[in-house]
């Protein structure tokens, strides 16, 4: 995220890291070229986002399998710190209630997700995933996407996760599994986590470019009025349904077909497997 080359990105960076603008880091960005555009290291060091990402990566490394119990607890703590640091780097929402609600929901979501990937037991992972889904649904509700919020819970938590549990229980009867305590290579964990952190870094660096890309200074402020006419309209479901079945009608049909095909495919796979099993049985 620190490889911003173009000048406009540099300006945009100032949005994410306000310190850049005043700290003289921007002068470095002024010149084009990747190396010249590297921001001042002091700015990076001062940015809580940087440290948040670093802490997050460390936390994930600590939490992911093949760590001891102590390491996992430590990872959780570091993860909390990381979330705090990241939150500190983010701009404030309107009031304390919304802010607090968001932070709580976001924290729950992210930590649950982290726990989901970190849990050694697949059942626990699934439960934590369900928790994360609840958080995500709540975040959707907070965004005004009430249908999506509930649909996520219904479809994921209600259907997918239950199926997961099914599978877990059927496929892992012995409970203990070495592969849940191991990664597949010495470099898998650090490299993967580093890649993930870098991806967030890149994405967040690109984030302030919105302003530039959109050039929506006008819309950003004046658009607040029209917003209720759009996605925030009181009769949310009606609008949503109208949109879904008018503009996206073809897509809906396609999605329906896809579901049907998936249904047939899943059944076909299972029948095949049963035939194999029967063949083995008879062979035995």
């Amino acid at each position, binding site marked *: 995220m620190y490889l*911003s080359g173009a000048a406009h990105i540099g300006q945009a960076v100032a949005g994410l890291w306000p310190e850049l603008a005043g700290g003289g880091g921007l002068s470095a960005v002024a010149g084009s070229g*990747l190396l010249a555009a590297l921001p001042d290291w002091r700015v990076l060091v001062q940015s809580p986002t940087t440290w948040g990402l670093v802490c997050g990566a460390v936390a994930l490394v600590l939490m992911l399998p093949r760590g001891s119990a102590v390491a996992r607890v430590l990872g959780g703590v570091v993860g909390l710190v990381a979330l705090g640091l990241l939150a500190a780097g983010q701009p404030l929402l309107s009031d304390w209630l919304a802010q607090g609600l968001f932070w709580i929901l976001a924290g729950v979501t992210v930590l649950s997700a982290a726990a989901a990937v970190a849990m050694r037991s697949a059942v626990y992972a699934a439960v934590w995933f369900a928790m994360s889904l609840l958080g995500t649904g709540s975040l959707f509700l907070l965004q005004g996407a009430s249908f999506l919020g509930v649909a996520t819970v219904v479809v994921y938590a209600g259907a997918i996760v239950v199926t997961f549990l099914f599978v877990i229980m059927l496929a892992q009867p012995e409970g203990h599994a070495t592969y849940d305590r191991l990664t597949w290579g010495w470099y898998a964990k650090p490299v993967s986590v580093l890649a993930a952190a870098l991806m967030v870094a890149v994405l967040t660096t690109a984030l302030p470019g919105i302003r530039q890309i959109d050039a929506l200074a006008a819309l950003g402020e004046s658009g607040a009025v029209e917003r209720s006419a759009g996605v925030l309209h009181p009769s949310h479901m009606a609008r949503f349904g109208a949109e879904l079945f008018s503009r996206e009608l073809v897509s809906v049909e396609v999605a329906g077909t896809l579901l049907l095909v998936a249904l047939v495919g899943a059944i076909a796979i299972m029948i095949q497997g049963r035939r194999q099993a029967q063949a083995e049985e008879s062979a035995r």
Partner: protein
Amino acid sequence: MDDPIRLLLILIPALPLAAAVLIGLLGPRVLRQQSHWLAIAAVLASFLCSLLLMRELSFLQRAAGAGGEVALGIGYEEVRRLWTWTDVADAYQQPRTPPGESRESLVGGGSRDFRIDIVLRADSLTCMMLVMVTLIATLVAIYSAGYMHGDPGYWRFFAYFGLFVFSMTMLVSVSNFVLLYVFWEAVGLCSYLLIGFWYQKPAAAAAGKKAFLVNRVGDFGFALGVFLIWTTYGTLNFHDSLRGGELEPARIQQAVAAERAGEVVPAEQEPVAGVFGPLRLADNELRPAGQPRTSAMISLAICLLLLLGACGKSAQFPLHVWLPDAMEGPTPVSALIHAATMVTAGIYMIARCTPLFLVSPDAQLVVSVVGGFTALLAALIALTQYDLKRVLAYSTVSQLGYMFLALGVGSLAGVTAGMFHLFTHAFFKALLFLGAGSVMHAMGNVIDMRRFGGLRRVMPVTYITFAVGCLALAGVFPLAGFWSKDAVLGAVHDKVHELEPHDSDSHGPAPHGPAPHGPAPHDSSPHGSAEGGGTQAVERPESSADDDVTPVFGLSNLLRGQIFHWLYLLGLMTSFLTAFYTFRAFYLTFHGPELIPPEAGRHAHESPASMTVPLGILAVCSALVGLLLDRSYLDGTNSFANWLLWTPSLGFPAAMRTTLPGEFHLSVAGWSTLMALGGIGLSSYLYLGSRHEIHGIRQFFDLAWVSGWSDVESFARMRQWRVARWVRECSAAVGLEWLLRLVVGALLLVVLVLSAPLLLLYYVSPYKLSYHRFYLDELYELVLVRPLRGLARLCYGIDRWLIDGTVNFVGRVPRQIGDVMRSLQMGLVPFYALAMVLGLLILLAVQLLG
């Protein structure tokens, strides 16, 4: 067909070819052990055709000679064009140098057509060769039918045989250097096939290969010579023609006349003077009309290159090594090669190119020297060989050397003598080889003379015929070899006297008889032509060569005379040696205690009639052919030479100025007979009786005594001598013992120093040199084969390591990269996912941040 000559010319090679093709096609399935009938019939028919052709030609010649006075000296040829092979007009163009200006380039200017017609010719030389080749081939074929009986490759042998005869007859009857080269190579190929006939034998395969490769060296030179001839003379034809390919002499005369008259003739009608065509040869200067004289350097180069080719084919000194090894082939093949086909090609070619050699005395000298040296060398080697066929092979090399010696003399007498020797040699060498084959046949393929002996009662016919052959080879009066060898030596002797100052004519080994130096006497001209007498008498032979041609080597006549003198002595010496080794082989084989090797089994009897009949025929021929053809001792008429002089490339005016054949040199004959009888006598003395002395003589020549001398212990033995003891005691009494010691010590030192080279000599004693063929094979191995092999190995190494290495490297780099990348293909799904993520990360970074 209304043109019998054309028909005969076609039939002579075509019959063997047809036989070869038929046997090749039908042999394996149909003919099998009956293949020889076809071959014999074809070759016999070919022989008869050759005789007919000879008869036709002699009629025509007589008619031409009777019709005009100028017949002799221009020659007579009948040329028949079959079809055009290739025709490239103005294939080579160079600005013509105006006459008088200094020549910038070695070769003359002008444009040259590259026109190759398939042209067959009939002239005396060709006819002679055809008759000889087909006759010998016929006899050998009959003989082979007996000799090769039961061989698994019977039909194959006769197929090759037919092909060989076809190639040889074509070689002597074509009228073009390119075709000559083609069949030159064809002969080489056939000899390769026949020498390596028993290809299962490693030695035979190696011998075939060796013959082929050594011949390639010569052929390379020949090819260069042909190129040079083309660039120099603008044509490769032997004969005159028009540019359109018209061969009719009348038309050519017309065109020449028209051109001389300054008329504009169409391009088709432009006359082209062949290299040995009457148009060119009639001109004394031996150059094409309107072209500057060929430079001496070019002439010499052409001649030496051709000589190189001839050396290869005729097994002359540096390239003679293949011929003895060619013994590995079936014996009839050896007979054919040695007598009639392969080796005669070189002689034929030199004889055919006489006009070219005439203008280059240096080249002639080289030819003679090479021939003389080879003759002596081969004879020396032949002295000690125990392999019967090998003795004969070296004898062939030696006799071929004689022929070269004669050809190099540079007079018509020499050339005809050489060809005459070729002719006679064909008979008795074929006889000897076939006799040796008969012996071999009886002895179960044992050829080492130490392992059999006293066969005269076992194989009487072979014994008698072989004896005739030996006598002929030794040159005993009145057998064929005597006459031809006498002619050769006489030609050389004449040359010596030509070149010597006239006041020193008594000098030399020919004290008897009138020396035939100076202008040739009119009456000695065999043609008896009234017209040519004047020109022949007036001009000195060397003037034609020396006036216009500057010798490149710059040798004085005196020196050349001395060289030829030595060559003459060498010839006599060789004659002696020839007689000796021939009878050594004869005695070892047929006299002494009867000894039959166990391999012979129940074969140890006289060979079948199919083998003895040809032997008989050849024996008769060997005995009589010289007597019948060379009647110079009677009236100075050599029918053979007279016949040969009708050849355009021999009997042309410039050549007629040289010494002509026909003189019988009594002194030379005497000396050579003396030598031959001496050789026979010595051989008889040594080998006919108890053979006690042989060991001592061999010890002597082996320098075994040197080892006895150089031995330090011999000094110790000396102390035991009575004289030594006496001296020692005396000196001790006098009190001068110290002086004695000093003297003896000094003597010892001197002897030691002196014996060092003797010691060296011991290891290369004359006997060993001879026995090991002067280490020539080893020398070639060391000087040529090894370095070449090393070079080849170097090239191979370069190819293998550098070029292949580069290519392989280029190929291996992607593979190595692929191998490295392969290791990424570890089958772990999460790893693939990680790779994808990393790639995605890079893309994202570039896209979003770049």
